[in-house]
């Protein structure tokens, strides 16, 4: 397929350059942009007792993603993204890949209907279709921007959207009576096509379709309904088992200004159903099984000072234990134990798999997921236990509050707190209690000293407390705290000296939920935590623009597993020299 696409696209690219040259002075029928990156990393073993592994290993590449935008007419665009990648150390064509990364046609028909066909990036709302940020990425103040940029770009994480392939259209109507607007949006995509699994076994096509109707009833009041469904087409494969997961959502939003505030109140609710269709059973009939139905409810209030110097969000949320929404509950990181880390996947001289640490979640692009999942994916409670599936995390009820403040560009601060309970207990009648306390503070010292060159200190703290009462077996408590510290000093024009740390400390015990392929809980395994993940780094950043920079940094990272009772847990630590030159073309 890629070969065929290459065959089609490369001539398009090659022969379009004449059009491009002409385009500089005319209507730009073909124009280009993209991204280029040089990457080099050298990992070094920290544990001197590990003698079976290379003491160091290096890896690097150069790539250019050339985006070709062809506009045969003003309202239509054909977009293709070609990737040319060259492995560091490969000479004269070896280690070179040229791939089609994206292909899309989009436009507007008669200035009425927008459409997109091909690779599209979709988002609806936080309970139907939403790609939540990965854990440990909050309140970093661009501390690990080079790493995050790569992870997000390589996995197509753009603006909390899911990358999908299919068709999308939207249009809107304006009214002069009764209501102001009525906006429609529909899409149908195929997250996974039918594939051959065995000699005569084919998986069915997986389809994600949805639609939204949004109406601005008045200047202040708006209403929306959303629908999304992830389903498999049984006849497109021969597995005879197919998922069906429709989610319905509606919301009412009321916005107004009062004194110096912009205030909004949003009420939203909805429900979901998920089941599996077992077709062509022995008796010739079809039946559905593992059916779950659940609802959610959220009431959120936002207070924003007009100059954006202060923002407060206060809300309450209830999400049913059986609420299932693949589009919003799919996680970026799957903690499936079968996934190996890329850097030093094994450690100790017993050659045991190395557990993932905070550094792997920061830097290993292969750990990240782009596929929608019909069942809840595994997570690690020390990195995220309060809301592992974002706001759509099932089995949660409680309150939340967040605030942000900007004081004359000198001081920036964010606060985030939440208190949730489980709706029903897992494996017991006792319910977990969750408490989230988080905040960050950034001080622009150069603003205080009235100096033109940037000098800032930032610090953040993220603490998650999980507890459950009950007897010795039921009782659990987990305390997990994430700390970030970052110094950013511009010592010469556009050159920044940077120093930072990230530390995750976790102690206590928690039960890991084990589910089967239909998402049904099978077992709980108790894990006692007493560990500390750390990443320290120092480096120099040459920042030409926000998306154009050269960064060289040295990382110290690892994990301390202070568990004398379990000798299979071993501490590890490594170091890395990293160079990234990233250019948005």
């Amino acid at each position, binding site marked *: 397929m890629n070969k065929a696409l*290459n065959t089609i696209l490369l001539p398009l690219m*090659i022969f379009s*350059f004449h059009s*491009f*040259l002409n385009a500089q002075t005319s209507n*730009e029928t073909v*124009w*280009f*942009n*993209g991204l*280029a990156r*040089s990457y*080099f990393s*050298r990992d070094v073993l920290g544990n001197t007792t590990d003698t079976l*592994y*290379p*003491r*160091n290993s*290096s*890896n690097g590449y*150069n790539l*250019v993603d*050339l985006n070709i*935008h062809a506009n045969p007419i003003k309202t239509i665009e054909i977009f293709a993204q070609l990737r*040319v990648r*060259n492995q560091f*150390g*490969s*000479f*004269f*064509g070896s280690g*070179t890949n*040229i791939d089609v990364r994206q292909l899309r046609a989009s436009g*507007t028909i008669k*200035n*009425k*209907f927008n459409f997109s066909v091909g690779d*599209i*990036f*979709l*988002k609806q709302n936080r309970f139907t*279709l939403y790609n939540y940020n990965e854990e440990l990425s909050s309140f970093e103040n661009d501390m690990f921007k080079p790493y995050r940029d790569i992870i997000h770009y390589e996995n197509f994480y*753009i*603006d909390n959207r899911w990358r999908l392939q299919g068709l*999308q259209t*939207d*249009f809107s*109507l*304006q*009214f002069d009576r009764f209501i102001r*607007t009525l906006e429609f*949006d529909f899409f149908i995509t195929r997250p996974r096509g039918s594939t051959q699994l065995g000699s005569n076994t084919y998986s069915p096509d997986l389809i994600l379709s*949805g639609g939204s109707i*949004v109406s601005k009833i008045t200047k202040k009041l708006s209403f929306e309904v959303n629908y999304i469904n992830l389903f498999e087409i049984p006849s497109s494969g021969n597995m005879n088992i197919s998922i069906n997961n429709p989610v319905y959502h509606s919301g009412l939003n009321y916005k107004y200004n009062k004194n110096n505030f912009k205030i909004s109140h949003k009420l939203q609710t909805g429900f979901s159903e998920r089941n599996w269709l077992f077709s062509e059973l022995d008796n010739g009939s079809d039946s559905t099984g593992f059916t779950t139905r659940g609802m959610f409810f959220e009431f959120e209030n936002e207070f924003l000072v007009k100059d954006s110097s202060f923002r407060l969000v206060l809300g309450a949320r209830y999400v049913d234990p059986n609420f299932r929404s693949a589009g919003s509950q799919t996680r970026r990181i799957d903690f499936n134990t079968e996934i190996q880390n890329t850097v030093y996947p094994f450690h100790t001289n017993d050659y045991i798999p190395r557990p993932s640490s905070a550094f792997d979640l920061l830097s290993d692009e292969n750990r990240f997921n782009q596929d929608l999942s019909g069942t809840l994916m595994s997570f690690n409670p020390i990195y995220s236990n309060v809301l592992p599936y974002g706001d759509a995390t099932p089995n949660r009820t409680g309150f939340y509050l967040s605030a942000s403040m900007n004081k004359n560009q000198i001081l920036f601060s964010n606060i985030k707190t939440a208190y949730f309970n489980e709706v029903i207990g897992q494996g017991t009648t006792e319910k977990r209690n969750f408490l989230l306390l988080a905040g960050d503070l950034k001080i622009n010292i150069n603003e205080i000293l009235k100096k033109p060159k940037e000098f800032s200190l930032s610090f953040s703290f993220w603490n998650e407390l999980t507890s459950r009462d009950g007897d010795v077996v039921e009782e659990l408590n987990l305390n997990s705290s994430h700390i970030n510290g970052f110094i950013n000093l511009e010592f010469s024009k556009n050159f920044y000296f940077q120093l930072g740390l990230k530390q995750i400390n976790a102690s206590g015990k928690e039960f890991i939920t084990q589910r089967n392929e239909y998402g049904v809980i099978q077992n709980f395994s108790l894990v006692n935590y007493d560990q500390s993940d750390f990443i320290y780094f120092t480096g120099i950043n040459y920042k*030409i*623009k926000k998306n*154009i920079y*050269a960064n060289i940094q040295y990382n110290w990272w690892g994990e301390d597993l202070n568990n004398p009772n379990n000798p299979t847990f071993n501490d590890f630590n490594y170091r890395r020299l990293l160079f990234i030159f990233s*250019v948005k*073309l």
Partner: protein
Amino acid sequence: MRQIFYSKVQIVSILIVLFSYSTHFSQNHDVFTSNQAKIKDPIDQLSFSGNYRFLGFVRNQQEFFPNNSGKTTAIMSGDFFREPMFLLKVKGKTKDNVSFGADLMINSLYKGPSEEFTSTVTLDLGLNLRTSINTDFGVFNFSSGGVSWYRQSRLTVWGNRSFNRISIYDRRPQNALTNNPNDRYNDFYKNGLIDQGIRYGSRAFQGLFLQGNKLPHNFSFKGVIGKSAFNRSFLETSDNFTTCLQINNRPNKNLKLSYNFLSSSQDLDSINNDKRQYNIHTFELSQKWKKINIHLESGFGNYTSIDEDLGFGEAIILDVKTDKSLKIPLDFQFYRISPQFVNVTGNFLNTSVLEIFPNIPGVGTTIRTPYKSPMVGLGFPVNNRQGFSINSDIDFGKLKLNAGIGFFSEIDTSYAGISYRHNVNSQTLSRIYLFAQGWGPYNFLNSTYRGVFEEVSVSDTNINGLANFKKFYNTIEFQAKYSNLLFGRKFYLFHLARFNSCQRKLYSLPQFNDKALISQLSNEIDFSYEMNENAVLVLSYGIERVLGNSFTDLGDNNEASSTNLLSEFLGIDKFNNVNRARNQRNRLIGIGFDYKIGENAMLFFRHNRYRYFDPNFVENHLQGTENMLELKITF
């Protein structure tokens, strides 16, 4: 059913009502969409250049080696070497002065429409990112990626670059197109230089490149951390790097001082315990004094590995040139490079450490140069060797002559072998078995990129298996160029003679007799005639004789053959010596034409009749024809 029908009616009714009340469709306000917003942000500059080069190749072998598969005719698109048919160079530059470049290589085998013959798109060399930073202290150029062509100094990083004494009958893919066909021969006649592309004289590097110019006190520097083409490991992630640095100072316009550094390090095992590395420090001085230019580079290097620690060794290259404006300009070169001074990226051949060449299948052979006491032409220094050469050129009207003579000796005894590169039919032979080592019926031949060298064993050895003596080399090169009019059209006649010998002691002239372990004498005559403004007829004749003495490999023919072809031809027995060692007679007769079919488009045809023959080694006999039709279009 009725319920469904009614619900559909209701939906349709609602839509009709809605549309009837709507004033218009709108795309102009902030409407909800599940899709992302479109932002038009084109790159500032993007340009394309490159060329299309089709090479139709037909080879018909009449005499072939005994291990030939039976396939004696080859019909190809391209000549086996990896070369782009369609080279598309993409260059872009952002508003922030960051540029990038990639060179896409698009080939087609033209072997039919079957998908198995479809070639994938790849890169000819690689990707590059560059930017320039202007500061109060100077201008800093930074680039990353590669392949980039990098040159520093002759003892550290420098591509092969000699006196341009070559035959220009053969074309290389990198040869640029001239305005019209005759310019190629005219340029060679006048200047001796043919545009060989940017890679000529430089080395391929990947990595991070930093250059600082216009620094305080007339300083400048450049350096790279990365890999040369020789930095290949059996484990891709193992450390295998070369680091270079040059710091320059120019106290005045006639004097330039430089310090050069090079370090190459390679892990040898999977857990990085064993290393092989060498370091070089040199100082350079370039002084222009009236009509004399002096260039001196001198330094020391050391080589260590798990197997041997060679310690420190010295190297010096001195080049004294008089100004071209003198009636008889002279170029005196002296060098001494000790066996401990090891480097594979400099302008000299490494002959003391074989292991430094990567031994990766499919890689090592492409870049392994002759290492067993190579007998080389002038301008190709070799380590474990010292000597000097004098070159000069003189014009007698339309006759331009240039010549050089060189005397060299080994510093220490070395391998019991000698290698020499063929001057005639070298490209033709290399195409028969690409990048192979020790091939041919006697395993003498080694193919490199568009060349073949041969290895000769020496039987007089010491207890260590090394040669029992130091080797001495004599070299003479002579080139004559003549141009005039014939039937009112320009013609060019080029003659190139190269004479090398290797023996146990130094002589005043190269030897072509049994005093020399190996003698190599070649004569190449090229003739080009401008038929009209767009067409040039080219003729070429080359003959190469290689003789070995009884201390080298002996042939399998029981009957010795004559070493003097002329006396044998004339039947004069007095001068007719015979031998049973190498007695090679290589010959090339070529005819071709260059034709300009349009602006930036030319057609080249070559018909070669080749013969590689040695009567003493009965199976060393190749003979056949090659036809090449090259269409090159640049843009």
